[in-house]
């Protein structure tokens, strides 16, 4: 019966159009945020305040997870490398996997669920309790006063957090590999240093985390700003933030990796 399937087709079409509209609105939103960033730079205190909530409060989870991921890498890497008799390359394995991939990606995923969801919930609640309207009525632009400082704080903290994650991970790999298992310390560091390139590996890793930072804060702020002003609306938006930004991070990672590491 063709007429029965029609509503489904129609709803798929409506959903598609809806998503395109939302994407357009999100683009306009980030444009507005960038255009209204002047206030944030004229008053760095606003960004510093948000750096506390996005950066400092995410620091513990990032440092602890970094340490554990590094330790697991050390353990697993040793198991695998020792079968080929090349456990001296443990440093290379730990450092390269962290600096290139795990550092930026895992810290971005943690950042999305720790700081991104908090940002969405906060802005969504501000909207639901009319705080944004109140601000608007006080002739203060909420985008300039609320959204832009959070955006820049997120963009600044993400690379710093990713660097902390990687450094902590290398330290974790060192503890397991050198201190506990007994891989030669000299070859651990020297092989690592000769294999890890500043521009190819470390700078590219920083660029990755910078891009992830932009994507996550953009998604989080937009979901909060666009959330229906109800309890369900805000909780739904918070969930969407974590799902969408995690997927965005993984997809962007694939794209960036294929650009950065395929040529060399």
């Amino acid at each position: 019966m063709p007429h029965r399937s029609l509503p489904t087709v129609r709803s798929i079409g409506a959903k598609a159009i809806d998503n395109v509209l939302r994407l357009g609105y999100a683009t306009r939103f980030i444009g507005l945020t960038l255009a209204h960033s002047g206030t944030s730079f004229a008053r760095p205190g606003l960004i510093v305040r948000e750096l506390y909530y996005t950066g400092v409060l995410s620091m513990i989870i990032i440092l602890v997870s970094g340490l554990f991921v590094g330790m697991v890498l050390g353990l697993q890497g040793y198991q695998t490398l020792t079968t080929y008799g090349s456990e001296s390359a443990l440093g290379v394995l730990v450092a390269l996997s962290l600096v290139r991939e795990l550092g930026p990606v895992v810290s971005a995923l943690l950042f999305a669920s720790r700081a991104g969801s908090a940002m969405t919930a906060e802005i969504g609640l501000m909207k639901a309790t009319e705080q944004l309207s109140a601000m608007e009525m006080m002739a203060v632009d909420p985008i300039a006063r609320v959204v832009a400082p959070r955006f820049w704080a997120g963009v600044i903290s993400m690379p710093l957090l990713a660097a902390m994650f990687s450094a902590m991970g290398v330290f974790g790999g060192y503890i397991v590999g050198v201190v506990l298992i007994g891989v030669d310390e000299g070859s651990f560091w020297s092989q690592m240093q000769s294999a890890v390139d500043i521009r190819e590996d470390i700078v590219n890793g920083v660029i990755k985390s910078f891009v992830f930072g932009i994507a996550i804060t953009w998604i989080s702020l937009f979901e909060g700003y666009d959330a229906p002003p109800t309890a369900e609306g805000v909780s739904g938006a918070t969930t969407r933030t974590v799902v969408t930004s995690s997927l965005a991070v993984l997809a962007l990672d694939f794209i960036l990796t294929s650009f950065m590491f395929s040529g060399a």
Partner: protein
Amino acid sequence: MGRSMLDLWVGIFVVAGMAALVILAFKVGNMSNFGGGDTYEINANFDNIGGLKPRAPIKSAGVVVGRVKSITFNNERFTAKVTMAVESAYKFPKDTTASILTAGLLGEQYIGLEGGGDDKMLNSGDSIRLTQSAVVLEKLISQFLFDKAAEGGTEKK
């Protein structure tokens, strides 16, 4: 939370992040033992560079003395022009030989420099005359087959 406490924590956060970046650059990466020092550039033309890539190491007697800076194609001589950045601390004579070698059987390719006996040293921008191209497996095999065929031909005559 007071204003100053907030500033303090954010300060700690930024310092920790920067410190992590510095650690990555110096302890994990190779900025401390190479990259920061002065270098000078010398060129070499190769008929075939094989799988040589920019930033490949340049070794002399097994010691890394520099890195490949760029590889371009010389359209007049139909050769590959390789620009090498060699650390200023190391000097090589004019009649140095540059050859493209492979680390191990299937390892990465690098340039090996072998010093000659000339009194004059290579300066920045100079070219190395004596070069030895990469060994290409297909060419080796076809050379071998060609030689065999040639031998067979002469025997028949």
